[in-house]
């Protein structure tokens, strides 16, 4: 029996999105196959890996495996961003404006704007600017910070069903790409993309956030929702599912005890440092296997490990 390579014929492809400014633009998406299957077509060729920083020092909130790496730069978002770019070779910086949350400092849009400005002047790589996941406050903050970051080709987020109009308006006005977040459901994700498009937003500027979970805490749900989104983009040529997908995994990963409990507290779980890194690495790889195009990490070594694996996945055998 002769073997023939079982290739799938796909009708659709993933939008290619370009972000950043000057000579430091990056592309993501653009693939025409399921992840890394170059034997059947044009596979994904760049997957930007970002590191997350915050506008306020997260000591106490972040695991010590992380805070011991960043140390004093956590007091200065611009220096922190520079460290991630220069020392840890992040392809992008993801600035989460955690301090704008009403329960976590309630910083004003103007204060947040100053930090965005400082971070932008400290780095060359593209910037992702995220709110604090408070729908009303995020809308207020983004109006101002999107303007501060005008024409830098940044990614802003996260637009949700309750605030997408504000996000769409400022992303269009100031030339940003938009992260569209929905509640872990393929239909909700599609619906938000339709709402954004109907409001006049260019669907080519949307990045899907299917809602990331982490290993052991709902990973299989995100994994399958993302896999289904990719399949409907490629097989059914569904234009409302053909956006690149972001995997915002650092925040969810470094919350769980498996990633941060010390060996003294959990002797049966082994050394905390490699365990935490592997927790983030496997979470990232899962979502990349399911169709992710951009990953936001918190641990620089998790990022560099995934970069090595990506090199293997993209090497033409």
């Amino acid at each position: 029996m002769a073997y023939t390579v079982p290739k799938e014929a796909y009708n659709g492809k993933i939008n290619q999105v370009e972000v950043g400014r000057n000579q430091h633009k990056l592309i993501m998406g653009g693939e025409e196959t399921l992840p890394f299957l170059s034997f059947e077509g044009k596979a994904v060729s760049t997957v930007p890996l970002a590191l997350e920083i915050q506008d306020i020092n997260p000591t106490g909130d972040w695991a010590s495996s992380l805070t011991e790496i960043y140390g004093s730069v956590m007091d200065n978002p611009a220096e922190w961003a520079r460290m991630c770019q220069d020392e840890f070779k992040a392809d992008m910086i993801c600035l989460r404006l955690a301090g704008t949350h009403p329960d976590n400092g309630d910083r004003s849009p103007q204060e947040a704007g100053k930090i965005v400005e400082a971070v932008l002047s400290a780095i060359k790589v593209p910037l992702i600017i995220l709110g604090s996941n408070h729908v009303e406050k995020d809308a207020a903050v983004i109006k101002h910070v999107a303007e501060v970051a005008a024409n830098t080709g940044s990614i802003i987020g996260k637009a949700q069903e309750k605030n997408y109009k504000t996000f769409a308006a400022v992303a269009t006005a100031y030339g940003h790409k938009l992260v569209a977040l929905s509640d872990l459901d393929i239909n909700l994700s599609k619906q938000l993309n339709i709402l954004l498009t109907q409001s006049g937003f260019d669907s080519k500027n949307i990045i899907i956030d299917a809602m990331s979970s982490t290993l052991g805490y709902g990973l299989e749900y995100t994994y399958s929702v993302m896999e289904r989104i990719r399949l409907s983009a490629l097989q059914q040529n569904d234009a409302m599912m053909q956006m690149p997908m972001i995997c915002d995994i650092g925040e969810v990963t470094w919350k769980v005890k498996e990633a941060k409990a010390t060996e003294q507290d959990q002797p049966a779980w082994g050394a905390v440092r490699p365990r935490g890194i592997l927790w983030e690495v496997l979470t990232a790889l899962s979502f990349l296997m399911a169709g992710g195009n951009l990953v936001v990490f918190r641990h620089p070594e998790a990022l560099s490990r995934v970069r090595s694996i990506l090199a293997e996945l993209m090497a033409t055998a």
Partner: protein
Amino acid sequence: MGLTGIQIFKYLPKTNCGDCKFPTCLAFAMRLAAAQVRLDACPHVSEEAKKVLTEVSAPPIRLVKLGMGDRTIELGDETVLFRHEKKFNHPSALALLIADNLTDQEIEQKIQQVNNSVMERVGQKLRVELICLQERSADPARFAQVAKKIVASSEAGLILSSFKPEMIKAALAETAARNPLIYAATEENYSQMTALAKEYKLPLAVFSDKGLEALSSLAEKVAAEGVEDLVLDSGARSSGRMLSDLTQIRRAAIKKKFKPLGYPTIIFPGEGGGDALMEAARAGIGIMKYASLIVLNSIEKEVLLPLYTLRQNIFTDPQQPMQVAENLYKVGEPNQDSPLLITTNFSLTYFIVLGEIENSKVPSWLLVADSEGLSVLTAWAADKFNAPKIAKLVKKQNVEEIVKHRKLIIPGYVSILSGEIEEELPGWKVLVGPREAANIPKYLRDMTSSAAL
């Protein structure tokens, strides 16, 4: 290939005798078409029909068993490419590689590491299922001696790894009863390896790194000689080729019904280079994408916990949410004055709520109600998480003897239940907690600092 129930029905006796435990031949035919029963359940089927139908009723990927008794390991028998379509049947089995040229003491340590690899998560016992003994000594006596030692000191499944048939032969005399996997038949040695597998009735791995065409034709030759329990190794050692080969093998078997590749697979993620984390990362890709058997060089606890968890996640039944047992759980070291929260028994809900209570560092009681694995809102909508049930649970778990206060914190999404619960539980006050688990730490900290209890 791929006959419908009606087509299959034509080959059956049409007596509706019921010996297959189905009321009619047609009902049996339908089950057969859906690959839910095996043809041997019908004792009356003719030889001719058997020939035609065996092809149809055979699973696209053969079920291969290794090991003995309650430590039997099942591989293969998968029917889909994506886990949302249908549950993946057999979780990737993990093996630790032991080389026979290590010292006896090192070997003993590694065997014990496998024996002590059991961890429990969400009520499941997870372990490294096998030991892969690799011949490096070039000494059949040494190889056989270590194999014997492994069988004597562990109940794990066994893989005997050498491309030299005389090595395998030496070890089999002592270990065949463990039902080990012979690794591996190659283009050069396959007739001798196949003869050994036949003699001892054992499964056999087939290795070719010359592409899937070469691998499939080798598997075909081995099968033609009468060994059908095969495991495939395409020689892929880096993530890229592993993913590409394993995907092609799985697709060829399931979508093209290509029999020469319709077998479980084996990978060696450590042979791609790098340290234990790189090995684990490649093993992770193997768990997600179609590796049946994964041989590891390192099984330190910090690597096992993430891999076990990933395996559990990927191989969960997508139609059947994982559940935790109904109970009153301690978070930290709560006392009779500690806060009491209630949630449902969907494992994800439980884990997230538990994690956030832990993050609050406020010792608490977490009462988990059996909602048949539904999350809070869904359970409320389906009437599986309601006031009478909650009241009954509070009584059943003796909560009133365990805590001194009478305050129950309910999820914010079901605030509507508070009045009704207070009616069902006289003397109790219901506090409405946050809607999102992420806000639990702040809620609990505010509550304890303001001494609401």
